[in-house]
């Protein structure tokens, strides 16, 4: 896959179809891969990588690249990234004419935290041999089935289908029968107090680094109210012990109906807060109240929360359900 991507990127740069390539750049270790914009064949040969650790969703970088102008941009998108791409198109945040999308097959990505949580450290290399991950460390060799350390969002992958592309490398997959709402259901079945305690426990770990917001492809405000000292609600740190709890709840409301469930928020959270569960709750509710809807599945449908039909549920439906 990586070789095909490198060849494709170099060919398109060479014939002038594109003048930049967005992909992933090799790091110091086995897992520390950085999203990157490549401009030359040399850089691509040296640094472009695609493996079990290229987890970052690079679609949001297109906003900045489109604003820069210049020639066309080649972007490599995994199936889940294509949903974010479509949503950005739908919200007129990126210019389709400037972008050449190469869809790439994905079997799920490994979560380095899951490896660390097994007490494995001092890693020198990690190789995936047909589904068996072999990790060489200074303390010895460890092997494990790769799926055991796969990221949670990949274990409950919603789709291996690319919803948009100009060209594909590898095979296109299908929308999968995902169990992604299981944990949401579990939370719904808790008592209000249990649920409150669960979220208080999780959200109180927040250090207000804003990584979830900054990585989120649905969070594209040019100047977030929480950064804007003129907004009256800007803050760099929680003043009260409930403030950052509120921040996440409000953010989830803000992206409701637009969140494609790419899972980047939870991937980047330094405190491992399962933020995606807030968004999934909204997705599940929208599905049940307005009919099945997947943000980013297309670019022309009307989103349930910004559309009005006479069949819309009455606000009281939502209200009554909240009463215990």
């Amino acid at each position, binding site marked *: 896959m990586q070789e095909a991507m490198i060849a494709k990127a170099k060919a398109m740069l060479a014939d002038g179809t594109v003048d930049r390539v967005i992909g992933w750049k090799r790091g110091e270790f086995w897992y520390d*891969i950085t999203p*990157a914009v490549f401009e030359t064949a040399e850089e691509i040969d040296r640094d472009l990588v695609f493996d079990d650790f290229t987890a970052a969703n690079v679609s949001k*970088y297109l906003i900045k690249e489109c604003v820069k102008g210049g020639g066309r941009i080649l972007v490599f998108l995994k199936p889940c990234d294509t949903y974010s791409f479509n949503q950005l198109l739908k919200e007129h945040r990126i210019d389709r004419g400037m972008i050449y999308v190469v869809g790439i097959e994905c079997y799920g990505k490994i979560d380095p935290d899951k490896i660390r*949580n097994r007490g494995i450290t001092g890693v020198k290399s990690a190789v995936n041999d047909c589904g068996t991950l072999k990790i060489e460390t200074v303390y010895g060799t460890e092997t494990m089935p790769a799926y055991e350390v796969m990221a949670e969002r990949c274990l409950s992958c919603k789709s291996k289908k690319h919803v948009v592309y100009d060209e594909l490398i590898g095979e296109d997959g299908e929308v999968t029968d995902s169990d992604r709402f299981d944990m949401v259901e579990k939370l719904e079945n808790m008592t209000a107090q249990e649920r409150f305690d669960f979220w208080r426990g999780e959200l109180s770990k927040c250090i207000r680094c804003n990584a979830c917001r900054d*990585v989120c492809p649905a969070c594209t405000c040019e100047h977030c109210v929480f950064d804007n000292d003129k907004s009256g609600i800007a803050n760099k740190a929680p003043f009260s012990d409930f403030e950052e709890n509120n921040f996440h709840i409000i953010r989830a409301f803000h992206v409701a109906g637009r969140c494609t469930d790419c899972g980047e928020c939870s991937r980047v959270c330094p405190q491992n807060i399962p933020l995606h569960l807030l968004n999934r709750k909204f997705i599940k509710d929208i599905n049940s109240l307005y009919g099945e809807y997947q943000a980013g599945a297309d670019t022309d449908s009307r989103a349930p929360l910004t559309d009005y039909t006479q069949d819309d549920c009455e606000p009281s439906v939502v209200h009554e359900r909240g009463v215990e």
Partner: protein
Amino acid sequence: MLRIKLDRIDELLAAIAKAQTLYLPVDRSDGQAEFRKWTEGARLSNALNTVRSAKDFFFPQTEKLMEFKTEGKKIEVVDTREDCEDFVIFGVRACDARSFEILDKVYLVDPVDTFYKNRRDHATVVTMACDRPAETCFCHAYGIDMTEPGGDVTCYKQGGYLYVNANTDKGTRLVETVASLLEDGDTAELEKAKAQTKEIYAQLPLAKLSMDNFGGDKMDEYFNSPKWKELSEACLGCGTCTFICPTCQCFDIQDFNTGHGIKRYRCWDSCMYSEFTKTAGGQPRPSQLERFRQRFMHKLVYFPANNEGEFGCVGCGRCLVKCPISMNIVKVMKALEEK
């Protein structure tokens, strides 16, 4: 050296907690460790590092400075400082222990930050020597020996024992309060184990990282480097690196309007944020490139320029693990060194 069997460590912790408020790293359900106040049944984590560093004890993320109460045209200023009790931080690693010295250079120089000093004075730091360094460790680059972490008391784990050695008067007083639990033991095996840990460390990927090309005299060489553009390109502008960093020390002072007064508080700031050091005159670092450059120039050049060569980094490796896009000080150093 004094020691106690590792299976009796809970007794030791309970005895310390009886004398003073005790904080220790414990494992959370998500597999990561954090410092928490000791409670009955608390188990000391074996994790190499906590997510948040130990700087929180002296330089908390938010801290109330004072209050203003208004009534009509009357303004009352309220001193909200609280008395600080003696406390013990147990299990601090060598890198975090060094970070306190770096923070001291900022907060204990004239004018002394009394909020910070108050907590420093009341704390006894008990360190834990490392015996299982990670690939992200590079404390050696700053002259730190992870097998000799210092602090008021140093602890070492070896062969089923926890060895305990007091380094300061404060440390001696703490060890005396738990003396009945400790026995004398031979340290020959411990010395061997320390040497082994160093051998392992030498095989780690960053073991040869050197600071030779950095320091206070490198301002002109690096400030205008064309590398900053590429290095900062993918930066999200989030505050993760600065907030988990044991040495990042910038803060902002903000007012919270209660409707009938003001609560003035200090909170961590991050040079990664768009409002960092914004003044009436505008934002001196208008793009992420300048903000990103500020963070690394501060640690690698400006801080040593102002502090007799001391770098503003201790090589704990937290930013290497936690940056959402895996950009970090090691990558920056290696890129700047490439000519």
